[in-house]
């Protein structure tokens, strides 16, 4: 069955539209990485990668990769005018110190109060947390980018996460193939639906109740 709503590239595009001129942005692997490919023109948006670079440029042409120029997903990047480098302790000082305007991470589950689970599957014995926990608690705003449900159709937006947590109460907005949902103080608020998707469809694919925003709109492209 084809996934309804937006393909990953359009989820990324919707997130990119959210990014303001002058923002420092950290992108996790998966859909978040795609955000880097569709940054809105005319805005200086600086990408931070926790392995030690600010202002990362696009992937170089094949054959011009440099093993000393990579992002946290181990993908080759390039230097832009205004880029700079630093060590990992300084990099996480930026993150944990609240200097990164927004981080976009993938998720296995997000709870209605903004808890994030994205690093481990229950019963998995080899933990590999990477920088996710620091990024989740440290960024000024945490966005999640993910498919709205699992491949089996089970909700990934849940009342309580059953997967091991990455951070408590950290997620601010969730961007999926079906919708844009805000984690508000009184619970989840449905802000936008994908073209052709109804609020009812979103609600059916979401475990906790959704408040529909008075100015609910269709994600514009």
């Amino acid at each position: 069955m084809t996934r309804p709503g937006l393909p990953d590239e359009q989820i990324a595009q919707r997130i990119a539209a959210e990014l303001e001129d002058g923002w420092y942005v950290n992108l996790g692997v998966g859909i978040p990485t795609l955000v880097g490919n569709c940054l809105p023109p005319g805005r200086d948006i600086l990408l931070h990668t926790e392995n030690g670079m600010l202002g990362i440029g696009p992937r170089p042409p094949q054959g011009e990769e440099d093993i000393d120029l990579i992002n946290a997903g181990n993908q080759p990047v390039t230097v832009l005018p205004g880029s700079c480098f630093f060590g990992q302790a300084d990099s996480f000082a930026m993150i944990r110190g609240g200097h990164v305007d927004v981080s976009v991470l993938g998720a296995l589950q997000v709870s209605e109060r903004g808890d994030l689970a994205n690093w481990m599957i229950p019963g998995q014995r080899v933990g590999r947390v990477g920088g996710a926990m620091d990024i989740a608690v440290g960024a000024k705003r945490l966005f999640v980018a993910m498919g709205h449900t699992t491949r089996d159709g089970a909700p990934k937006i849940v009342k309580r996460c059953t997967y091991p947590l990455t951070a408590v109460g950290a997620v601010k907005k969730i961007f999926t193939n079906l919708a844009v949902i805000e984690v508000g103080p009184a619970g989840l608020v449905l802000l936008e639906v994908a073209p052709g998707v109804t609020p009812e469809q979103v609600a059916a694919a979401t475990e906790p109740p959704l408040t529909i925003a008075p100015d609910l709109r269709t994600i514009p492209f």
Partner: protein
Amino acid sequence: MNKGYPSSAAAVADIPDGASIMVGGFGLAGLPVNLLRALAEQGARGLTIISNAAGRGDLGVGRLFKGRQVRRFIGCFPVPGHSQHFEEQFLRGEVEYECMPQGTFSERIRAGGAGIAAFYTPTGVGTILAEGKEQREFNGRSYVLEHGLTADYAFIKGYRGDRWGNLAYRGTSRNFNVMMATAARVTIAEVEEVVELGALDPEAVVTPGIFVQRVVRGEVYDKTWVA
């Protein structure tokens, strides 16, 4: 003062069984491949390896797991499907593993090098990685107590270095090398080029020589991109 060593083998020759070793690098960037190769040949066993990743096949610290030289791994991110030597031995109970968030890992090493015994970080609160750890509120927010981390040796890789141990890096190869250099009793730096004193721009020295005890020109660097 000349911290230069003639070879990677000479630089790691005295490492005893049971030593704790920090290993820098993220991906291939800043990975001290020559020191790791030399240590694999040297054969010290029962090691504690402190490294972000657990190797990629035989690459990086993977080689040490393959040779069953490691007793304990402290790190953040054994790469799925690639850190197989580590994974097999961990799942068989032959290797211990302490997993922690990468920022906490970095900060614990910085603290160890800076004489800070412990610190309170917001990272990990409410997760299984904070279980059993002291928690405390400051200004209404919860923090976890984490301790400084030091080691007997650090294996790091710079781009250029001089005989006093000053190091400059290249691109994203600083990563863990910068903190690890500060947190070991003996820091061994491999570099692509050993330059004359004064050849490094003093404004672009990232690791001051005070943190480095041994410098060696790495024998072989394969800088081919591997996807």
